[in-house]
């Protein structure tokens, strides 16, 4: 880790300008991913700009929905009674992530921007297209257990590790960004990218873009929603597969449904195909299974010397069915 300057800007604009004006500057929020990466030598900034004081750290009501300041800590957000009541899947997603200590540090702006946990990405001594474009992807044929099955490319098969982001994707959240050209909004489902031939870019953000808030639209269906995380360790572990879902069933028929998947792709994966397959169908297990299958038509396992990740394909189906069964049983 080389030496860097540290700056506490006066406000969001100054923070954005400090980073936008310096190719080698980075934002520091909770630090739980950035400081980790500084030590691993994955990023070498000259300037670290502390943004914990420049964006809001409050959750406020707006237009029937909630605005979450980028500096709101994950634990505060998870405990917010309005989130628990109106968007339980978000609270559950947050609480299933990391640990009590980490959630006290991690922020709403930083969490979705954490980078993949791919072991080769985090190990400077191995090839990785995300870390060193053109060096190859060591994950294929290697340690593939945690890699993706949807939207992967020959250049990168990594997964996005955030739980919170899966819920935000299902909730059609909106990201508020302050960039060199002013303020703009990005639908959360479009924030993250697929790897394609440019896996080094995780999101559509440009250097200097500062997330100032995340907006949750009024979403009545979300009041009965769930986040289900399947992992290797009972706690303090990243997802193998996770499912965020909400469903509205009337007279045994699915009127509306939201499904997003975690642990399967380079981005939180909104399961539009599954949603479409389910809308208007009877809320029965066979249909849940078929909906999952519809989403997984293009799923591709990654071979690995650890046995690969083909198990994720049936695991997604089983978890989706399990969650939808649970939600619809409660519904009745």
């Amino acid at each position, binding site marked *: *880790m*080389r030496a860097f300057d540290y700056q506490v800007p006066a406000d969001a604009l100054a923070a954005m300008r400090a980073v936008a004006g310096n190719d080698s500057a980075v934002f520091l929020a909770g630090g739980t991913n950035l400081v980790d990466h500084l030590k691993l030598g994955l990023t070498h900034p000259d300037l670290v700009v502390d943004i914990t004081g420049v964006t809001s750290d409050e959750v406020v009501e707006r237009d029937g929905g909630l605005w979450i300041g980028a500096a709101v800590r994950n634990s505060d957000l998870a405990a917010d009674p309005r989130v628990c009541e109106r968007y339980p899947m978000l609270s559950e997603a947050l609480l299933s992530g990391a640990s009590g200590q980490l959630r006290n540090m991690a922020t709403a702006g930083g969490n979705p921007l954490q980078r993949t946990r791919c072991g080769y990405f985090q190990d400077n*001594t191995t090839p990785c297209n995300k870390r060193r474009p053109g060096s190859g992807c060591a994950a294929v044929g290697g340690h593939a257990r945690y890699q993706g099955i949807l939207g992967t490319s020959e250049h990168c098969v990594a997964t996005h590790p955030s739980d919170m982001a899966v819920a935000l994707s299902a909730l059609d959240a909106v990201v508020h960004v302050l960039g060199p050209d002013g303020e703009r909004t990005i639908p959360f489902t479009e924030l993250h990218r697929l790897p394609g031939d440019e896996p080094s870019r995780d999101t559509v953000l440009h250097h200097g873009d500062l997330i100032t808030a995340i907006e949750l639209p009024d979403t009545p269906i979300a009041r009965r929603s769930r986040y289900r995380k399947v992992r*290797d*360790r009972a*706690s303090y572990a990243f997802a193998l597969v996770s499912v965020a879902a909400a469903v509205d069933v009337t007279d045994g028929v699915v009127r509306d449904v939201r499904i997003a998947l975690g642990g399967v792709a380079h981005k939180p994966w909104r399961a539009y195909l599954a949603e479409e397959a389910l809308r208007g169908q009877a809320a029965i297990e066979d249909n849940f299974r078929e909906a999952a299958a519809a989403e997984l038509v293009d799923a591709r396992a990654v071979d690995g010397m650890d046995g690969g990740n083909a198990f994720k394909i049936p*695991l997604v189906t089983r978890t989706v069915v399990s969650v939808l069964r649970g939600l619809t049983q409660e519904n009745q």
Partner: protein
Amino acid sequence: MNAVGQDMVRRDGPAKVTGTATYAYEAEVDNAAYCHLILSTIARGQVTDVDVSAALALPGVLTVLTPGNVEKLAPTDDAELAVLQDGEVAYRGQIVGAVVAETSEIARHAAELVHFTYHVDEHDSIFTTDRDDLYRPKAINPGLEPDTSIGNVGEAVRSAHLTVAETYSTPMVHHSPMEPHATTALWQDDSLVLWESTQSVHSVRTDIAGLFSLDAEAVRVICPYVGGGFGAKGSPHGNVVIAVMAARALPGRPIRLALTRQQMFAIVGYRTPTIQETTVAADRDGRFTALAMAAYGQTSRIKEFVEQTAAPTRMMYAAPNRATSHRIAALDVAVPTYMRAPGECPGMFGPEVAVDELADALGIDPIELRVRNEPEVDPETGKPFSSRNLIACLREGAERFGWADRVAGARDGDWLIGTGVAASVFPAFTLRTTANIRFDHNRYTVELGAADLGTGAWTVLTQIAADALGVPVEQVDVRIGDSAYPFASVAGGSSGTATWGSAILTAADTFRDKYGDDPADGDEAENTFIGTGFEGGPYATYAFGAQFAEVRVHADTGEIRVPRLLGVFAAGRIINPRTARSQFVGGMTMGLSMALHEHSVLDPRFGHVINHDLAEYHIASCSDATDVAAHWIEEDDPHVNRLGAKGIGEIGIVGTAAAIVNAAHHATGIRVRHLPLTLDKLLAGLP
């Protein structure tokens, strides 16, 4: 009143709960400099050039150690310790350099700036049983015969009523103590002080004195507390040699060196992966007619360590025909070493699952099947057991666990429920140790170079000494963890308490013989206890145990939980039930961790472990192990040693994984033979 057997609170407890107990890196010294290791990024070849200019140019860098510029060590047959003596690289992650700087941040930064040029040779890090270069080692740890054979296993199998012949495997795993290996080293006035995280201050002293051609008296190793070792700190590794080199390069300047967590997966040993071709043949009544294991493991091309995986197969159950063998592959990989219950821990996995498979096939209760195959004497040596209470452990465990109530196909909501059992064993032996006792101001000070890794030595040795001297514990100060005290054996092999305790008894006898019950200030006596060595005496001396697990498997996702784990052990005299229980439970928890999680993923393309941190290499978390209970059978074994104590530190990890795998089978009908037991191995067979 006897102190031994009392539930005495840890003497070091207050220091540990406040964090004021000082570990090796935390030694109180002034003006420390910081050392950061550099590890090779190739798996085989030579360092041909090192460019240190950028590192040295960094303000605050004091020195850079490289293969070209360090002092010559005395010849050693331990290639792991011959660090930086030449540019040869024998495995990925081998130490190729180190930086010393004014702060840890600068040292770490400078380490990134040292540029290595390598000549790269082809490497081979693939462990399989179909390699044509597997060989039969001369001996296996700790000096046992590699192969044994009695009768004719092949013939017995042909005429058996039923045979289970399956291959089981356990993956490469790492000790991962919470305290990374660390040293504070000070070279001053021609003598060396090492605050070192070690299970044996004296072996560190001997090895370091030898390597640097110093008198043993010129080296002092201090280690009052160890943040876990489990074998990884049983003998010194290359890091301590580097710390000494750095200290000698900067006389008068204390050097602090701690490994990063990632480095812990590279240079301080691991448990070899094992492959266990296991055969159990039985007659109609379930009596074993043959028992055999062909065990395979790996070692490093530069240093041989052979896990005695098949050793427990030799003594656990009766059978007229028996055979064991060990074959190993010498690879371009780091050096494996002993890890909590070497041999027994991996080696009781295959057989204890195989016995369960056989019980299932025969329709005999797995406890009953084990009882039917209880040997009269050690089946291979013919020695009588000093005491053997396996059956009592099984029975008592069954009672406490509610074994009789087990039903196949149990279900609670989404969770499939099963229970399983397995047996545990670990040899009991003692080593050589000297203790010194001094009387002053109405207090007894007992000194020996023992170590407390969390085992409770500070406390239990006090209890033993108090009884040996016939005084209350308040009148006794035990001092350990310093090579300035008399020689003590390694805290390993579950031999510590029995060995050191016996030495204290011996020294106390001498003290009382010399000075009677009314000593004068300054009276002092010392004596040495010889111990049995690994060979043991006329008896076969083992601790036994039985482990019971309840496993829940989620019917949809295959997630596996162990809500209940219960062990009953027969391990001789229990000196302190409080610390003993923690030792058993701790071992069982590590066994649970091994069963469900642990797997060091060595990528043979690169030669190193890819999941080399605690986020990717999972050890059990608090939520994985909320109800782990241990009990024991009162055992009065007059043969094992004067204390009547067998070891308790390792047996807890033996058999746990088999009990859990057997319970998972009971819950799901799916038999998993390759650890770890993860959900992907169950998914296809779930409803």
